[in-house]
């Protein structure tokens, strides 16, 4: 078992290198990288200022950024070296927690990510808690009252949550509750008056006021699968011989569930734990964009649009690491709750 986890931990290294080298190479061989961007921006600037003062429209670009400056820029971004050499340089820096400098903001990438990470984590952790909080009792009730009126009605909600992707739910919520009814704000992590608020309590309330719709969208995306899983596994266990034996021996039905069936039914839920981490990272691009939340997802999305490759790679590094550890964590959870599981 220990051997298995050590191997898994060691496998993080080649996986990480594989992912990053793939993206690194891609970002290198593309037109429209940071240098071309800078040249274009300089051109625009000279067009605007130059057009006002003098009428010499020709020779733009060269006039603002000469060959030496371009060379300097290339050196600065490491574009003057072969791909693998600059990849190695980059990797050495990453190991030292230096992710480079954003080409758009000129801030260190790591600082930018550190700023955004808590916001995504806030949503991620809350989503996970709420999902467990809804799914486990709901799945339990649906299993116990299988085929009842309650089961059928709740199935509709679960079913819609299952069929429709979470970001579409987010858009629906935005249309209904923010745009039409105006009950909730259109987006953002907190309101404009956040800095001026008197008490911490008011600030917390404001954050949750803004978080209500995105959280609902996140939860809608994850609670359905979890509820189904809880219900099915509990029903499998209820049908198992050991529960029948327990009931036959005279244990009250309730106790048979809580003491026997429930424990084993939670195993698949534990397996799902690590998947959640990746779902939250993956899903956040869409939901953070819809609700304009300044989290890791929106940062990654914007950096791709703006071709800010240091940030693109930075976000990739962070989300890859989170996902890698998430998967291992999920395996550890499974091994912890189910002694029968043998990893080899």
């Amino acid at each position, binding site marked *: 078992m220990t051997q298995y986890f050590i191997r898994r931990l060691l496998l993080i290294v080649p996986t990480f290198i594989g*992912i990053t080298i793939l993206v690194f190479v891609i970002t290198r061989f593309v037109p429209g990288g940071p240098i071309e961007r800078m040249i274009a921006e300089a051109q625009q600037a000279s067009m605007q200022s130059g057009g006002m003062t003098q009428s010499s429209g020709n020779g733009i670009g060269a006039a603002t950024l000469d060959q030496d400056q371009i060379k300097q820029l290339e050196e600065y971004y490491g574009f003057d070296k072969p791909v693998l050499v600059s990849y190695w340089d980059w990797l050495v820096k990453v190991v030292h927690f230096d992710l480079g400098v954003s080409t758009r903001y000129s801030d260190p990438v790591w600082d930018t990510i550190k700023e955004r990470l808590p916001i995504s984590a806030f949503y991620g952790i809350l989503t996970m808690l709420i999902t467990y909080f809804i799914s486990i009792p709901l799945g339990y009730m649906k299993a116990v009252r299988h085929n009842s009126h309650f089961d059928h009605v709740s199935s509709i909600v679960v079913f819609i949550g299952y*069929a429709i992707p979470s970001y579409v739910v987010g858009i629906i919520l*935005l249309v209904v509750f923010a*745009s039409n009814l105006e009950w909730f704000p259109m987006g953002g992590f907190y309101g404009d008056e956040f800095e001026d608020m008197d008490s911490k309590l008011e600030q917390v309330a404001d954050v949750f006021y803004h978080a209500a719709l995105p959280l609902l969208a996140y939860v809608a995306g994850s609670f359905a699968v979890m509820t189904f899983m809880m219900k099915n596994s509990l029903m499998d266990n*209820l049908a198992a011989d050991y529960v029948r034996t327990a009931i036959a021996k005279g244990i009250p039905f309730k106790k048979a569930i809580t003491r026997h069936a429930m424990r084993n039914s939670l195993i698949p839920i534990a397996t799902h734990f690590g998947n959640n981490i990746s779902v939250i990272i993956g899903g956040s691009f869409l939901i953070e*964009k819809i609700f304009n939340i300044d989290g890791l997802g929106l940062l990654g999305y914007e950096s791709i649009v703006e071709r800010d490759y240091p940030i693109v790679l930075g976000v*990739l590094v962070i989300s890859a690491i989170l996902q890698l550890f998430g998967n291992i964590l999920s395996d550890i959870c499974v091994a912890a709750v189910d002694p029968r599981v043998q990893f080899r």
Partner: protein
Amino acid sequence: MSLFQLNPLTVKKINRFKSIRRGYYSFIIFVILVLLSCFAEVLVNSRALLVSYEGSLYFPTYGAIIPGKTLGLDYEYETNYRDLQKILKEKGNGFVVMPPIPFDPYENDLRDGEFPPFAPSFEEGHYLGTDTIARDVAARLVYGFRTAIFFSLILLVVSYLIGVSIGAAMGYFGGLFDLLFQRIIEIWSNIPFLYVIMIISSIMIPNFFTLIAIVLLFGWIQMTWYMRTVTYKEKAREYVMAARALGASNARVIFNHILPNTVSIIITFIPFSVASGIIALTSLDYLGFGLPAPTPSWGELLSQGSNNLESIWIVSSVIVAMTIILVMVTFIGEAIREAFDPKKHTTYE
């Protein structure tokens, strides 16, 4: 081939599927919708279905452009059939039969003195209104559905072909081949794939088939992994041992014995793959990393709609369409799973 002969067991499964009403009806409606979308040009088009002009009949839907001169108008470019309809009605020397939605998904139906998006109106023929550059929403919905469904179906076929062949080989032969692919899959499945797809397609601006290839890069894993497990289990069963004892070759065991026994499980996956293909394309289009600009797509409509919430008809029509299709596909999936892999539970009173 035994794969396509309906044995009594399969007939039983199909009958069980038919008995699950909502799944069966969803299936019928869905198939009809897909078939209709193949002939979308007849239903949604700016070209007329039939023009009768001075005694001769024209069928402009498929085929070459008919210049305005031919139909008595004073220009050489393609006839505007909606105008022609009005003109011929006044003159009375012919008639035009337009499709139910008389707009092309690419054309801008601009008006003087007004700015799009235009609200839905029956008089103008824009039943679901227009988008921000005056293209008909209904037309774009229909063609967007066609793009999404064929994207998803092609993705499904190719990823299943890859998944089934690699997975079956992994499970059946085992050994070094299995180990190698296990490691590859372990690494591959840890990539935050949506993000990497976004990066790749931001760089190469994909078309329909390259986008399928990009999504396929990450889409083959699930089926491969599943197929590996199933084949591994089937291989250990007695009928395989019996076949091998009789001297059947590897190919024969795989194609004649193992594969037919896994088909029913593969089928239960299909509806869910269709749904996830549609969702993948729509998400990518929504983010702007899907098919390039003028292509009609649901994701593009969604993003337009959510950026113009005051023009509620854009976002609501695409959400309604998407919900209906996805719910139907999930109904089908649920029914197929129920029919092919029924679970009977003991319940307590």
